[in-house]
């Protein structure tokens, strides 16, 4: 396995790299997911990328300044305060929204492309091209724990009590998706998979 140079990514930059209308909505969840206190900080992820030359490990340092982020999003502080005060109503989609944010960072760093659409209930989640019958996109997942083993299960599926087909197989089966990637994130430990599924 090869180790690539460290990516240092300021979250404020995501407003430039991606559609700011999408970025503004995912950042509060991303900040809360990585730091429950909602403070400034640096969070280091190990990102494993499958390439044709073999596995490549990136180190991604995500950092932010709440004051800088607030310039793009006036209600950010209020949302973080509500979260800290446990006044927010539900947590179930937090990991999903946070993973969208992290995947947008990965798309910016690795593909250097922009997300054009977001899809909640159909794979892939983040679309790079919505041409009918020739979709291109990135399927995303976020998990709070279990590290690479948990992410691998999402990727390759599981048998057992609630058997699930893996996301990789699902994407391969979808005839109308011509280019697809997986971007999977675990919060503790902070690890991630980036996998090109097709072509």
């Amino acid at each position, binding site marked *: 396995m090869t180790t690539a140079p460290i990516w240092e990514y300021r979250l404020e930059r995501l407003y430039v790299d991606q559609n700011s*209308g*999408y970025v503004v*909505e*995912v950042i*509060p*969840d991303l900040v809360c997911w990585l730091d429950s206190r909602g403070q400034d900080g640096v969070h280091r992820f190990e990102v494993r990328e499958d390439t044709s030359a073999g596995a490549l490990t990136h180190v991604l340092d995500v950092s932010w300044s709440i004051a800088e982020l607030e310039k793009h999003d006036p209600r950010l502080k209020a*949302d973080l305060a*509500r*979260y800290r005060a446990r*006044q*927010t*109503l*539900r*947590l179930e*989609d*937090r990991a999903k*929204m946070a993973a*969208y944010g992290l995947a947008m960072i990965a798309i910016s760093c690795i593909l250097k492309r922009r997300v*054009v*659409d*977001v*899809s*909640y*209930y*159909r*794979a892939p989640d983040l679309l790079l091209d*919505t*041409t*009918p*019958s020739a979709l291109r996109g990135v399927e995303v997942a976020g998990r709070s724990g279990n590290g690479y083993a948990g992410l691998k299960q999402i990727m390759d599926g599981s*048998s*057992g*009590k*609630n*058997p*699930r*087909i893996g996301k990789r*197989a*699902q994407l391969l*089966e*979808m*005839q*109308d998706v011509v280019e697809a990637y997986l971007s999977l994130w675990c919060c503790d430990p902070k690890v991630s998979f980036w996998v090109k599924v097709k072509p």
Partner: protein
Amino acid sequence: MIPMERETLLREASKLKLQGMRLRNFGDANEQREATLLLRKAAKNELAALELQANPSEEEQARARIESCGLFLDAHDPIRAAEQWNQIPRKFCPPNDEASWLDRLSPRYHEVVDHFGRHWRAIKPRPDSIPDAAGLSQEQIHSLATRYSGVPEFWWALSRYHKDQDALDWVKVLEPDYVRDEVATRAWQRIEEPFVQRLRIKVSPARRGGILRLDVVGRVATAFSDLLSDFVDGFLDRPVELIPIGATPGSFVWNVDAWGLPSYAIAELQERATVDPAEVGVNELVKLLEQLDQHKIDLTASIATQDTRPPQLVFGAERRKTLLDAARTVSEAINSNEIPQANRLERVFRLVEMHASGEEINADTFGEGPRDVVYYRRAAKILGFLDESDRLTLAGRQIARLTNEHRMRATVVYFESSVCGDGWIRWAKKQTLLEVEPESAQQFIEQCVSGLSATTVDRRAQTLMAWHADLIPYHYSKR
């Protein structure tokens, strides 16, 4: 060439989804309402974008319907969600391979729709008609409106019959057309439509002048109900609830409301029964066909709202004979409803205890989902603790009064002598359960049980392995 408008609608929908979800996650009570609006609008944008495509492929239709269905669920509007669900092309529905498209949506959809069905039916004074909104109490409607805050029909009923100004303001935003009472009244009358299929089941004597006796009609009704329920549960992986709402004499016609039945299920049953009877729960099929054959009765079934002539399912004289011969040749297989899908034996015992003490058993009292209640009741029948009419058997009475340890010891014997346990032991060429390898459960089901999807095979194998692990420490041949 993709119309620019379509892209604009999709971009707007993406933004609305993310805004809505952020408000769901962080917003206060007022902002939850705003989230409902945003998610509902996103769903409508998805559908409008689909409308703009000249000849959308099945994949494109499925994508738009799946996404809008999910967004309507997030907007707390199961009615619009169900309308979209019903329009997902059949290719993407169980038992087809492409059903994995629904993986993300399906569990959430079924959970919400099952709950909605229960809450809605709870306010119906009669099973065969839509309740008059004017006759419902404010409390009844308010309870539905707050649970399903994205359903404009409930807010309209509150505003119309209980003069609730807040409800009226909300209706105006959710569905402005509903300020016209005639529009809202029509919508109210159609609330049930997306959730229920009205079946028209007709039995008639094969010969002119033949007479249908009540006991025979009753047995045919039971056999048909068993066949359809077993098929839908095992093959389409859904429980179905069949509620008779009326009958007319002569040729005997039942109208039955089938909650949870996919609209294509009857046609699918006809097709599968013809191609391979092993796929539809062959023992149930043989039971029904024997009843029809013995009493020279024809049976047809159709979805009443679909004007289908001829009916979608026909067991007439000629077909009855052919099918019966074909079905008998494969009826040695174990019926899928003889295989339990209820992992925890202590919950089976709890259900038996509740029966013994005369408690009402439903999802709330049993503390599991509605599907689980069905599965645990089925497990109690498989072990012989309940009979097919849900009455406690002598074995069930014994289980109810025993201690936990003695229950397990007795259940070893009941399971070994059940169709499932006996079949597993004989298939493994062993003498008792103790000698059977638990890991062989999946292979046993795959080889010996007909009419189960791959997912259901796996789930039921998990149950057999769990029961094996629980029962072996209490096996009678162990010291």
